[in-house]
C-alpha cells in the first residue's frame, strides 16, 4: 500500500506513545520523543506535496492542513526544548524518572489526540479527540504533584469535564439537525456531508447546538468567562506543557469552533455566529488585558496574555471577511510560535532563578543576556510591535474592521494598549534594573526559542507567496 500521510500523523505518535511508555531511561526516551515528533512534522509537511483523499473518518483540506503543520512543528520544537528542560528537572530532583516515562508517553498521546481532532472528518470523533487531549493535559498539569499543581489539575479537570458535556450536547444537537435531511447513521456526522447540506438543516436546532458548542469548545479556547482553568494550568504544569497548551491546544479547540461557525454560516436562517464570537472575543481580550497587571507569577501572566490573544483571534474570525479571516489565521500562527518561544525562555528563566515569582527575578539582560534579550524580543513580539509578525496581523485586524464597526474595534484597540502596558510593566522588572535572585548561567537549548522568533520576525517582514495564497484560500473558505 502507498504511504498515507494522514495515517502517518496519527500512527507515529500512537506507536511512539506505546514505545515510550515501555522504555526506561531519560536520555533515550527524550531523544526518541524528539525523533517521533520530527517524523510527525515531516509527514505533516508532506501533506502539501501529496494530498491524500479524505475518507469518511479522516479529512484533509486547506483549513486543517495549516493547523496540522503548525501543530506538528511546534510540538517538534517543544520536544527539543522539553529534552533540556526535563533534564534539568531531573537533575534538581523535581521529577522522578518514572514520571518522566509517563510524561513522554502522555506527550505523544497528546500529539495523537490533537492530530486526530484536526484530521477527524466526523464531529463525534473530533469531540472524542479533543476530550482525550484535555484529559491527557490534565494528567500532565498535575505531574509535579505539589499541592497547587494538584489543585490546578483538579480545577482544570472539573471545568474541562463540564465543557466536555456541553460540547457533546452540542454535537448531539447537530446530529439531530442533520438527521432529517441526511438520514440516520454515521453519515449524518460526517463533516464533508454536513457542509454540503447545511443550508437545509433546521435553524433553531443549529442555534442551540452552536450555543453549546461555543461554550463547550470555548472553555478549551479559554474565552472569558470560561477561562478559569487556563492560568493555573499554565502556571503549575511543567513549562513544555504550558507551551503546548498555549501554542496548540487552544488552537485545536479554536479549529473545532471554526468548523461549526462555517456550518452555521452556510445556513441563512440560523443566527449569525459572528456577533457571539466577537462579543466573547472582546470580553476575553479586555478582561485578560486588565488581569495582566497584578500578576506575580511569570507563567500565569503569559497565560493571561494567551487569553487576550485568543480574544483577538476570535474577534477577527467573528468579524469575518477575507482580510479579517486572513489576519485571524496569521495572528493565530504568530501567537502559537511567539507564545511557545516565550514559554521556552520563561522555563529556563524559572530554572535559573529557581522561582516563578516575578518579584524574585530582575536584571536578566545583565545576568543572562541571551535569555533576557530573548524574553524581551518575545514580549516585544507578543505586544504587537514591529517588525515582528503579530504587528502585521494586528494591523490587518484593526485596519480592516475599523471602517466596518468602529466602536468594537476601538474596544479591541483599547484592550491591546492596556495589555501592552501590563506586559512591559513586568518586563521592566524582569529584564532590566538591578539584578535580583540567583545568576547562574542556564544550561539551556536556545535553538527552539530563537527558531520560533526568527520565523516570527521573518513573517513580519516577508511572507512567502505560497503561504499567503494558502492562507487566502483558507480565509475564503471561512467566509
Amino acid at each position, binding site marked *: 500500500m502507498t504511504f498515507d500521510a494522514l495515517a502517518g500523523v496519527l500512527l507515529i505518535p500512537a506507536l511512539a506513545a506505546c514505545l515510550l511508555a515501555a522504555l526506561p531511561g531519560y536520555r533515550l526516551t527524550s531523544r526518541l520523543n524528539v525523533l517521533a515528533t520530527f517524523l510527525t512534522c515531516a509527514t505533516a509537511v508532506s501533506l502539501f506535496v501529496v494530498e491524500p483523499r479524505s475518507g469518511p473518518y479522516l479529512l484533509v483540506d486547506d483549513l486543517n492542513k495549516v493547523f496540522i503543520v503548525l501543530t506538528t512543528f511546534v510540538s517538534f520544537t517543544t520536544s527539543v526544548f522539553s529534552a533540556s528542560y526535563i533534564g534539568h528537572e531531573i537533575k534538581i530532583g523535581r521529577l522522578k524518572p518514572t514520571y518522566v516515562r509517563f510524561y513522554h508517553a502522555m506527550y505523544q498521546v497528546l500529539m495523537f489526540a490533537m492530530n486526530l481532532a484536526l484530521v477527524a472528518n466526523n464531529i*463525534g470523533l473530533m469531540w*472524542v479527540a479533543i*476530550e482525550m487531549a484535555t484529559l491527557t493535559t490534565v494528567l500532565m498539569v498535575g505531574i509535579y504533584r*505539589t*499541592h*497547587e499543581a*494538584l*489543585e490546578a489539575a*483538579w480545577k482544570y*479537570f*472539573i471545568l474541562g*469535564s*463540564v465543557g*466536555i*458535556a456541553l460540547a*457533546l*450536547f452540542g454535537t*448531539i*444537537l447537530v*446530529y*439531530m*439537525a442533520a*438527521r*432529517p435531511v441526511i438520514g*440516520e*447513521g*454515521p453519515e*449524518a*456526522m460526517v463533516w464533508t456531508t454536513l457542509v454540503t447540506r447545511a443550508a437545509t438543516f*433546521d435553524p*433553531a*436546532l443549529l442555534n*442551540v447546538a452552536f450555543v453549546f458548542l461555543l461554550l463547550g469548545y470555548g472553555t478549551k479556547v479559554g474565552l472569558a468567562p470560561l477561562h478559569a482553568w487556563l492560568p*493555573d494550568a499554565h*502556571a503549575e504544569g511543567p513549562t513544555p506543557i504550558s507551551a503546548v497548551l498555549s501554542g496548540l491546544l487552544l488552537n485545536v479547540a479554536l479549529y473545532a469552533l471554526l468548523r461549526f461557525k462555517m456550518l452555521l454560516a452556510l445556513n441563512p436562517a440560523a443566527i449569525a455566529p459572528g456577533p457571539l464570537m466577537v462579543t466573547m472575543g472582546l470580553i476575553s481580550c479586555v478582561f485578560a488585558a486588565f488581569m495582566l497587571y*497584578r*500578576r*506575580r*507569577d511569570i507563567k*500565569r501572566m503569559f497565560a493571561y496574555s494567551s487569553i487576550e490573544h485568543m480574544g483577538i483571534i476570535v474577534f477577527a474570525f467573528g468579524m469575518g471577511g477575507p482580510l479579517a479571516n486572513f489576519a485571524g489565521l496569521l495572528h493565530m500562527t504568530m501567537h502559537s510560535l511567539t507564545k511557545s518561544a516565550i514559554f521556552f525562555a520563561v522555563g529556563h528563566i524559572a530554572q535559573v532563578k529557581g*522561582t*516563578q*515569582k*516575578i*518579584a524574585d527575578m530582575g536584571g536578566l539582560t545583565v545576568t543572562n543576556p541571551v535569555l533576557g534579550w530573548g524574553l524581551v524580543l518575545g514580549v516585544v513580539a507578543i505586544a504587537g510591535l514591529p517588525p515582528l509578525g503579530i504587528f502585521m496581523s494586528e494591523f490587518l485586524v484593526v485596519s480592516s474592521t475599523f471602517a466596518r464597526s468602529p466602536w468594537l474595534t476601538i474596544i479591541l484597540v483599547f484592550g491591546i494598549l492596556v495589555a501592552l502596558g501590563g506586559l512591559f510593566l513586568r518586563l521592566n522588572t524582569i529584564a532590566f534594573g538591578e539584578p535580583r535572585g540567583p545568576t547562574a548561567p542556564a544550561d539551556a537549548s536556545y535553538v527552539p526559542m530563537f527558531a520560533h522568533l526568527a520565523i516570527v520576525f521573518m513573517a513580519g517582514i516577508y511572507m512567502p507567496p505560497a503561504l499567503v495564497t494558502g492562507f487566502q484560500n483558507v480565509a475564503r473558505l471561512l467566509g
Partner: protein
Amino acid sequence: MRGLSFDIAHMLAGSLVLVSFMQLYQDRLYALLNIYALHALILAMSVAWQAFVQDAPHLYLTAVIALVFKAIVIPTALHKIIVKLGIHREIETVVGVGPAMLLGMGLVALSMVVMLRVTAKADPLAREDLAFALSVVLLGLLMMVTRRNAVSQVIGFMSLENGLVLAATGAKGMPLVVEISVAFSVLIAFIVIGIFLFRIRERFDTVDVQALDRFRGERR
C-alpha cells in the same frame, strides 16, 4: 404502537426531569444519593425503551451500564466516601431550596421555549426528548452551582450527564452512543476517585488563601 411508544418515552423523560427536581429539593446526602439512584434507574429504563423502539440492540448495553454502574456502583461508592470523610451532615446550599426550585422552573421553561422553536419537521419524539434532556442538563448544572458539598456536586454532574445520554439515545441512529456513555462513566469514576484520593471534602468550594500567597505568589 407509534403513539404508545411516544407516550412511554415521553413519560419516562418527563419523570427524569421530575426526579431532577426532587434532587434539587433534597438537602440530606443519603437521601440525595438514593434519589440519584432513582434518576439513573429511570434513565436506564428510558434508554432500554429507546433500544426497544428503535430496535437498536447496542443501546441495551448503554442501559445496562446506566443501571449497574450509575444506579448501583457509584452510589454505594459515594456512600462509603461520605462515611469515610464524615460529611454525612446537612448539605449547605448557596441559594435556599425554594429559590433553587424557582430557578429550576425557569430553566425548564427556558429549555421548552428554546426547543419548541424547532420546526415540527424534526419528529416530535426527538423534540420532546430534547426539551427534557436540555432541562435535565440545565438542572444538573444548577445543582452543581448551588451546592457547596463536593459529593452533591458530583451527583449534579452525573445527572447532567444522564441528560446527555437521554438526548443521545433519543437521537435515532446516533453512532458512538455506547462509547460515549462508557467514556463518561470512566470520567465520573475519575472524579469519584479524585474526591476519594485527594480527600477533597470541600475543594470544590474552598481555596485556601495561604496556599495562594505562599506558592502562587498571587495576592488578593
